[in-house]
C-alpha cells in the first residue's frame, strides 16, 4: 500500500480498488456488501430511523478519540437518542491528496472498533480524493439506520415537574479539542467524552416508560440543545447552575478564555427529560454505565406556556439562556 493518498486513489481505478480492499474492507469486514452499488437490508416490518452527519474536526486525532471514532459514535448517538437501535452505517470519505495512508488506517480501525463495540455494521461507503489544498486532510460523512422496537419510544408527553437529566460532565469534548489544537498554549488533562451511548440509552428506554425525549448536546452545547427542546415543544424549563456537572479542569480553561461550559460541545452525553417519579430510578440506571457515571438531575419543566430555558443562579435568581450566538473567541474583557 502507498504511503500517501494521491488523486488517483479517488479516480475509481486500481488505486481506488486497493484503497477499498486494503483499508475499508479490511477494517469493516463484510466484503459482500462492497460488491454492489447499494447494500441490501432485510426489514422485519415496523419503522426505521435514518440520520446523516458529516465530520470535520481539527485536529483529527485528539485526546479521547479521533475523527473516525467520532464519525461512528456521533451518528450512533443520533439514532440512539431518537429511540431506535442503531443497526447500519454507511460512510463517505473526502480525502485530501497527500494524506498519510498510515493515518487513514488508524482512523478506519477506530471506526471499525467503535462499530463493533456498539453493534452496528458499516455496510456501504464511498471515497473521493480532492487536490491538495481543496480539503483539510479528511472529512467523513456517515449515514445511520436504526430500527425501532415495537411499542418502545420516547413519549413526547411532557408534564410539569418532569426532570431534566444530563448523563455526565459537560464541555469535555470542546475543551479537549480546543487545547489539542495547541494554538492557545493551554494544556489540559481533559479527554474528549466521545463515546457511543446506545447501550446505556437502550437500557433506560427498555426499563422505563417515563422517557419523554432524549437528545445529544453536541455543537452549541447543553444550553443550545435545551433551548431547542423548550422552543420546539413550548416548555418552560429551569436548570440549576450548581447541579450541572462540570469538571474543574474544564471550568479552569473556560475561566482563562472567557468561555461558558454550557455552550461547549459534547460528543458522549445525552440529555433526557423524564417523568418526575421515574427520575431517581433512571439516574441510577445511567450511573451503572461508565459513560453515565457522572449523570445528574439538573432541572425540571416548570411550565408549558412559554418556550424558554431559565438558569437558576446559586443566589436563587433566574436568567434566560439563549442559543449559542456565533463562534466563541477567547476574550480579555
Amino acid at each position, binding site marked *: 500500500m502507498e504511503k500517501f493518498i494521491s488523486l488517483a486513489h479517488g479516480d475509481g481505478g486500481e488505486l481506488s480498488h486497493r484503497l477499498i480492499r486494503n483499508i475499508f474492507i479490511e477494517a469493516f469486514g463484510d466484503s459482500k456488501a462492497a460488491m454492489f452499488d447499494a447494500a441490501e437490508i432485510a426489514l422485519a416490518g415496523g419503522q426505521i430511523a435514518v440520520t446523516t452527519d458529516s465530520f470535520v474536526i481539527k485536529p483529527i486525532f485528539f485526546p479521547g478519540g479521533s475523527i473516525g471514532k467520532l464519525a461512528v459514535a456521533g451518528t450512533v448517538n443520533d439514532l440512539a437518542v431518537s429511540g431506535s437501535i442503531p443497526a447500519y452505517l454507511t460512510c463517505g470519505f473526502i480525502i485530501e491528496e497527500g494524506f498519510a495512508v498510515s493515518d487513514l488506517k488508524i482512523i478506519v480501525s477506530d471506526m471499525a472498533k467503535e462499530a463493533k463495540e456498539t453493534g452496528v455494521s458499516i455496510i456501504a461507503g464511498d471515497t473521493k480524493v480532492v487536490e491538495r489544498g481543496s480539503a483539510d486532510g479528511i472529512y467523513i460523512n456517515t449515514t445511520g439506520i436504526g430500527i425501532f422496537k415495537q411499542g418502545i419510544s420516547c413519549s413526547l408527553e411532557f408534564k410539569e415537574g418532569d426532570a431534566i437529566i444530563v448523563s455526565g460532565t459537560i464541555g469535555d469534548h470542546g475543551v479537549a479539542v480546543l487545547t489539542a489544537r495547541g494554538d*492557545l*498554549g493551554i494544556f489540559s488533562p481533559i479527554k474528549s467524552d466521545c463515546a457511543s451511548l446506545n447501550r446505556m440509552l437502550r437500557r433506560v428506554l427498555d426499563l422505563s416508560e417515563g422517557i419523554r425525549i432524549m437528545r445529544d448536546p453536541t455543537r452549541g452545547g447543553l444550553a443550545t440543545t435545551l433551548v431547542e427542546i423548550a422552543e420546539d415543544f413550548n416548555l418552560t424549563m429551569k436548570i440549576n447552575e*450548581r447541579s450541572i456537572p462540570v469538571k474543574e479542569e474544564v471550568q479552569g480553561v473556560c475561566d*482563562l*478564555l*472567557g468561555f461558558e461550559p454550557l455552550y461547549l460541545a459534547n460528543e458522549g452525553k445525552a440529555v433526557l427529560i423524564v417523568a418526575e417519579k421515574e427520575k431517581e430510578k433512571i439516574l441510577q440506571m445511567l450511573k451503572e454505565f461508565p459513560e453515565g457515571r457522572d449523570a445528574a438531575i439538573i432541572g425540571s419543566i416548570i411550565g408549558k406556556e412559554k418556550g*424558554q430555558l*431559565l438558569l437558576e*443562579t*446559586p*443566589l*436563587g*435568581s*433566574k*436568567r*434566560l439562556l*439563549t442559543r449559542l*450566538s*456565533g463562534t*466563541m*473567541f*477567547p*476574550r*480579555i*474583557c
Partner: protein
Amino acid sequence: MLEILKQSNNPEICKPLAEAVKEKAKQFQNKFGRNPVFMEVCGSHTMALARSGVKQILKNDVQLISGPGCPVCVTDQKSIDEMIALAEGENRIICTFGDMMRVPGSEKSLLDSRIAGKDIRVHYSPVEAVKVAEENPDKEVIFLGIGFETTIPILALMVGEAEKLGISNISIWMTTKLVEPVLRYLLDSGGDHMDGFLLPGHVSIVLGEDSYRYLVEEYHMSGVITGFETAELLSGVYKLIELALTEQTALVNNHPSVVSKTGNLVIQQWFNKYLTTCDEAWRGIGIIPDSGMDLKPEYDRYNARKKFYIEVNEPRKSKCRCGEVIRGLISPMECPLFAKACYPMNPIGPCMVSTEGSCAAYYQYMRECF
C-alpha cells in the same frame, strides 16, 4: 488557598450576604426615601453582576448603573472603522483580541473581513503576535491595541519583546483608554446623582488604591475597589450602602488580596518607559484630553498610526444609543434597538457585541423571565 478563594462563590455565604445588602438598602430607603445609586465602572463587573444574579436580586433595592468600562464599547465608531480599514491593506496580518472580531464597523466587522479572505488572527496574549511577525518576515503584522490600564502594559510588553528580538515588521494600533479621565468627565458632567462607585478590581492592581484619592478629595464621592466573585461584589455594594447611609465619603479597598496601596510599581515603570498620554475619542462622548495612552515618539517604528496611512469617512449616525449607555445615562432597555434590531447575533452597537458590554449583559442575563 484554593479553598479560601472558593468561599467567594459559596452560596452559604453569598445568599445571606445578599439579604444583608438588601436590609442595608432598606435602611437607606427609610432614611432617604429612595434607592441608593451606584455605578459599576468596569465592564467585567457589569458582566459578573448580571451573570451571578446579583444585579437581578438587588434590582428593587439598589440601582446599579453600568459605566464606561468595556474597552470595546467605549471605542468610538471612527476608530473601529479605522481598524477594520487597516485589515484591507495587502500583505498584512492583523492580530487582535477575540473581543474585537464581531464589533460592527460602519460597513462590516473584522470577522466579515476574515471571511472575505483577510488574514486576521485572534490571540489571547499580545506577545504571541511577536512570534507571528517572526514567522512571517515578508508581512506586516499589526496588533489592534485596545484596553484599559490592565491591558495597556501588556501592549507595551509586546513592543518591548519586538525590540528585544529586533523584529521590525510588527506594529501596534493604539486606541487605549484610561479610567481617571473618564470618571472625572462623568462627575464633571452631571454624575453627582450617584452615591458612589464600585471600582474595578483588576485595573486597580496596576493603579493601586491611592490613585483614586481624587474621588474623595475633589468630588466627595465614595469608591469601593471590588473583585469579581459573588461575595466580593455583594460586600462591595454593602460597603457602598453603608458609607452612603452614614453620609460618609471614603475610599475602601475591598480587594486587598491583590490590590495594594501603590499598585504594581513594575508595571508603572513599563508605562513610563514606553508610553505617554494622548487625547482619545470615546463613543458618545467625544475627545477627552489625555484619556488614553500612545507609544512615545522614540517607538514610532512600532506605532501603526505612524507606519500606515488610514483614512475613513465620518461614520453615519444611527439610532444606536451605546454612547448614552456607557455614560450610564440610560439603561440598555431604553434604547429603541435593544433586543429588536440589535441582539448578539446581529449587534448594531459595540455594547451588544462585547460579552461585558452592558447591552449584551442585559440581553443575556437580565431580560425579564416571567
